[in-house]
């Protein structure tokens, strides 16, 4: 498993995209914090859309808003934020593939992200069919809420992985 990731990291490190990403991050003034801010603002959009929607299905927030209407209004924001998150994150992964592909926290983040996306699609689809009060809908909302929180926290912990997984 880890040999496969090592191979992947080596392959990315040898690609032309890697050289471009390194060149941009090094030579375009202010690019790293600007791209990180794009990433962060997209995270804010995720929190303001699917996370607020999940909290609504769990009956914790915005009681006067209709979950069915929320799903139609907020889903485009969630799905619109994703490509921005992927693009802004990819620049850093391309520039330093070993830092990410060999980092257990990055694996946790991506796994939680995939789960969060599947749960978001499920939750929005259920709400689109008018199902927001069932045990199933609430279970999906709770699991989705946790998956997004893990994704975001694990993302920040990529830089601090040594605290949890001491280097050998």
């Amino acid at each position: 498993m880890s040999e496969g990731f090592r191979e992947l990291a080596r392959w990315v490190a040898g690609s032309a995209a890697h050289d471009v990403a390194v060149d941009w991050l090094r030579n375009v003034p202010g690019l790293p914090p600007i791209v990180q801010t794009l990433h962060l603002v997209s995270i804010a959009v995720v929190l303001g859309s699917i996370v607020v929607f999940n909290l609504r299905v769990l009956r914790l927030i915005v009681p006067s808003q209709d979950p069915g209407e929320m799903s139609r209004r907020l889903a485009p924001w969630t799905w619109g934020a994703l490509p921005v998150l992927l693009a802004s994150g990819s620049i850093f992964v391309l520039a330093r593939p070993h830092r990410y592909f060999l980092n257990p926290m990055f694996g946790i983040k991506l796994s939680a992200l995939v789960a969060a996306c599947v749960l978001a699609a499920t939750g929005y689809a259920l709400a689109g069919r008018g199902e927001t009060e069932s045990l199933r809908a609430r279970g999906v909302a709770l699991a989705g809420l946790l998956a997004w929180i893990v994704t975001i926290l694990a993302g920040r912990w990529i830089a601090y992985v040594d605290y949890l997984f001491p280097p050998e």
Partner: protein
Amino acid sequence: MADFWTRLELLPLAAHIGETWWFPLLESLHVLTAMFVVGSIVFVDLRLLGLSAMRYPARRFMHELIRWTWASFAVATVTGLGMFLTRASWYVSNPAFQAKLLLLALAGANMAIFQWLGQRDIERWDTAASTSTAARIAGAASIICWIGVTLAGRWTGHLS
């Protein structure tokens, strides 16, 4: 004053945060809660701009969401202060951090002005198909300020 910031750094709590996993814990919680603040405010701003959620009365929409914004803001402030303690004199002299505080103050002033003046005639546009000019200005200014706070906050860590 310089002495004061240095004394903060010498607090046992500051040393504990700076030397243990407390710092990454506080930082990750700060990111989560601060971005919830921005995310929830953006959707209030879109309502003020008359671009989204027009089927809900503006006042109710804002009131229901903003209590969560404040709760989240409180956590972001406490976690932010915890990180600030560890290198207080470095933060206060960091231009990006200074810009962040200025933008936070502007965002707060914008909110206060809207509260006092912009909401005076809310009865007129609370359930209308469009919002007032003052509401639209407040909404646009808020989005700009909060993106600026995020950018300056992220930039703070890039300055040595």
